[in-house]
């Protein structure tokens, strides 16, 4: 910031198209806007206050203590982990299969199928949530593990499809013929040749599907039941009903976990590329 405020170079010194100082300043402000919410949640999580008062008062771990001991929060956390694990597993299996299938398919029908599988990315979550809720009421899936898993798997599929497809983009189909000509059945070819080569795409897709499910709140709000609700829904309750500052601790845990996961994936990915 201080560099921005230094004396501007004279007209002669200035490059023909240097970035003007005010543009740099504006970009800096926008950068701050991007990260602002994250900057507030973590200090708040160490507050001793029992309200949402910010700046936080004192310093303690009691919000974390409450998060990791209160059965309501613990159950919500466990439910979210279970749902996200199962949903991402299902999404990864069907999404990877679909990416493999669509990889060599051409024509109108294949394009249509791909669009169809991607549609949930651009459909407003609220519209999906309402439609699913009405149907799930009848199918008695509201508030059930199966309901959450199926719904979250469906919205996770596009992420798997995109990342596996992009991994397949750099895949040499000659390897498949080579493998087949050496007598390997398709399943073995997949396990020994294809899967290792596209593993990065599969892992990326799986992590996406997991994070998407773990963080999903709109559909989960509609599928919740007193017996079964996920962590984001409990966070929602803590803001709307309970005014429970434990949400600060759970936010920090979730933000940290997601960021670390992304950074690890990034690190693994960039090492693999070299």
């Amino acid at each position, binding site marked *: 910031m201080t560099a921005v405020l230094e004396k501007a170079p004279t007209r002669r010194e200035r490059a*023909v198209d240097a*970035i003007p100082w005010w543009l740099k300043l*504006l*970009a800096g402000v*926008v950068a701050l*806007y991007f990260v*602002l*919410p*994250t900057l*507030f*949640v973590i200090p708040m999580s160490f507050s001793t206050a029992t309200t*949402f008062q*910010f700046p936080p008062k004192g310093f303690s771990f009691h919000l974390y203590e409450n998060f990791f001991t209160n059965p309501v929060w613990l159950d919500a956390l466990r439910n979210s982990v279970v749902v996200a694990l199962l949903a991402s597993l299902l999404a990864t*299996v069907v999404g990877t*299969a*679909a990416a*493999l299938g669509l990889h*060599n*398919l051409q024509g109108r029908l294949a394009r249509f199928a791909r*669009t*169809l*599988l*991607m549609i*949930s990315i*651009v459909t*407003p*979550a*609220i*519209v999906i*949530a*309402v*439609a699913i809720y*009405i*149907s799930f009421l009848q199918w008695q899936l509201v508030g059930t593990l199966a309901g959450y898993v*199926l719904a979250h798997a*469906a919205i996770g*599929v596009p*992420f798997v*499809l995109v990342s596996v497809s*992009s991994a397949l983009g750099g895949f040499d189909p000659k390897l498949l013929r080579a493998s087949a000509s050496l007598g390997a059945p398709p399943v073995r070819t997949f396990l020994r040749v294809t899967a290792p080569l596209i593993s990065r795409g599969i892992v*990326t897709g799986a992590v996406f599907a997991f*994070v998407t499910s773990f*963080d999903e*709140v*709109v559909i989960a*709000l*509609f599928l919740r039941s007193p017996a079964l609700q996920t962590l*984001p829904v409990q*966070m*929602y309750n803590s*803001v709307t009903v309970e005014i429970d500052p434990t*949400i600060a601790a759970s*936010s920090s845990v*979730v*933000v940290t976990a*997601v960021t670390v996961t992304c950074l690890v*994936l*990034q690190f693994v*990915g*960039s090492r693999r590329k070299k």
Partner: protein
Amino acid sequence: MSKRRVPSPQWLLVLPALALLTVILLVPLGRSVGRSVGAPVWTFEHYKALFTDGVTLTVLGRTAATAAMVTVIALLLGYPYAYVMTRVGPRLRGLLMVIVLVPFWTSVMARNFAWILILQRNGPVDSFFQLFGLHVVLFESVSGVVVAMSQVLLPFMVLPLFSTLSSIDRRLLLAARGLGSHPVKAFWRIYWPLSRGGVVSGVILVFTLSLGFYVTPALLGSPQESLVAQLLGQRTTQLLDFEGASALGMLVLVVTLVLVAWANRVGGTISAIGAVATTRTEGRR
């Protein structure tokens, strides 16, 4: 009849995914369509009600106005940011890109909670303005919703813009300057028209995505000034008006899909979203 080609066995691999999507999305959405036209008795009453009940139109108008404000803010902030991104060294550009992606990483509820902290009465924003004797409480107001939604949607403006702006040949500007054009004029006459593709696709994308926001207006907005998503939720879970909710849902869905298809034609937005989606973990591209 011409000879029919046997479907490729590859399709078997696609089937499970299609089956899942059918059961979870297509069937419920199809049933929504059915309900909205009142099956078994065919009627357009529920659609007509949307335009005549006096509430829905107001809420739709408010939602569109909110989305428009979000879009304008995102453009005003996103354009300069994307521009600066194209002009800095690779290292700083990498950092700026990671910063763009921070809203994707941040958990939805954590982010909304943070905005409550920031915008609430006696919160940091309010305290700052109290120094000047002003009370600025954006919490439980449309302004608060706009501020929070702009932050989340800004990446959808910056990313298409960045890809368009990076492809603009800056020598054209140099040429304009060399011929004596004022920088502002050179920008308006040369740079801005060349960037229009990115602007249009970013604008449509941000506007479209704004229409469906549920949690942010529910938590940060004013209950008296609800947006269409909350109206949809309320009709479904509280009023149990499944027919009315289905009709409204279809209206939102159709508007969204039409706008997205348009944005896609303008700037390949669907693939751009795909790229955005994968950058969530891959960091930079």
